[in-house]
């Protein structure tokens, strides 16, 4: 989802830890090392990596191309291959009938059926192009805050995993507990009370 869209979703994070100095070079190295690459292995159905906000299909992290004022702006790209189930079924049926004719037997064993299905899937995945999905990121380094432009659970999980691998920094999603624990400047006694809270009954 593009941050320039007319309607967007945002998941907020806090970042634990600091990048090694020089910060921009460390950041660029993490982005380049984990930049999205085209799916070369025909049996893979997914690729995940960073890409440039302005050139999402030709990632370029040269210079300070990802720096906008005090913010770091780039994108997570998830390329996924998808084969319709009906197409798989069609090719499995065709292949199964061919094997039956060749073998002269009236039926195929369970393992033969599984093998045919795997072969069909591999063949189809090798021919289907991957569909790219883009999710923009705004990182306020000084404030240790990051906005991710999606609420999708799977996309958020991919972000958290890749971010840790790329920068050795932990992203903490701002949900009701963490937003209270980290962002509300609580005293230790208040953090203890927070842990014991139970739902308020507004009835009666």
């Amino acid at each position, binding site marked *: 989802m593009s*941050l320039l869209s007319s309607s*967007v979703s945002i998941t907020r994070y806090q970042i634990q830890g600091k990048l090694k100095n020089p910060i921009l070079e460390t950041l660029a190295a993490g982005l380049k090392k984990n930049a999205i690459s085209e799916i070369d292995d025909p049996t893979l159905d997914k690729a995940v990596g960073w890409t440039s906000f302005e050139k999402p299909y030709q990632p370029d992290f040269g210079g300070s191309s990802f720096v906008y004022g005090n*913010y770091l702006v780039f994108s997570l790209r998830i390329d996924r291959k998808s084969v319709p189930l009906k197409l798989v079924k069609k090719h499995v049926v065709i292949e199964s009938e061919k094997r039956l004719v060749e073998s002269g037997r009236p039926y195929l064993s369970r393992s033969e059926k599984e093998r045919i299905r795997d072969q069909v899937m591999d063949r189809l995945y090798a021919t289907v192009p991957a569909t790219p999905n883009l999710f923009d990121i*705004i990182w306020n380094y000084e404030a240790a805050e990051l906005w991710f432009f999606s609420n999708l659970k799977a996309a958020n999980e991919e972000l958290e995993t890749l971010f840790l691998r790329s920068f050795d920094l932990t992203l903490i999603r701002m*949900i*009701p507990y*963490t*937003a209270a624990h980290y962002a509300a400047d*609580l005293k230790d006694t208040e953090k203890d009370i927070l842990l014991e809270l139970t739902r308020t009954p*507004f009835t009666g």
Partner: protein
Amino acid sequence: MLDIAVAYNRFKFLGEEFLTWLWFVIDQDPTILIKADSDLTSLEIGNRIVLEKRHKKDVERITIKGENAGLEEAMLALQKGALVAELNLVYRSAEQKWQFTLKGESLNLSSIQTPKIAAPQSPEDMEGVILEKIFLYDKILQFIEKLYKTFIKYRLSDDWQKRDIALIKKWSRSRA
């Protein structure tokens, strides 16, 4: 620090109580809103409010949609033990308008619409456009963060049990 998945499920009620409190504040005590953002002109309930009542594993869900929808049913649901699970809000500052939906269990924001900005005419315009858009998002994100901090301070104080619960109950009875 709790494990994040445990914390999500254990404390989702806290986000729903925040939205319920926010509805009460919008209706009864807007000075709290001004304290969180002095640029605020108004904050109104938008075109959607969802309430959920949990009983063991069952969830009863009431959705009220549409501009200028009556909220009597939502008040009745509140009296019966439901909390606000999702709230669409309209934030105004001077002549500008933001609209977005806040989800209680995650505090995620969705369907965010900011005031319109001019599209970039050339690659050189891009940085300015991005920074302007960031400023517009930051405006409401900071506002919500400050409101949540205010709520948490109330929620952890003795006043919540002594005063706030009674005020919210009284309000929902008077409006149903």
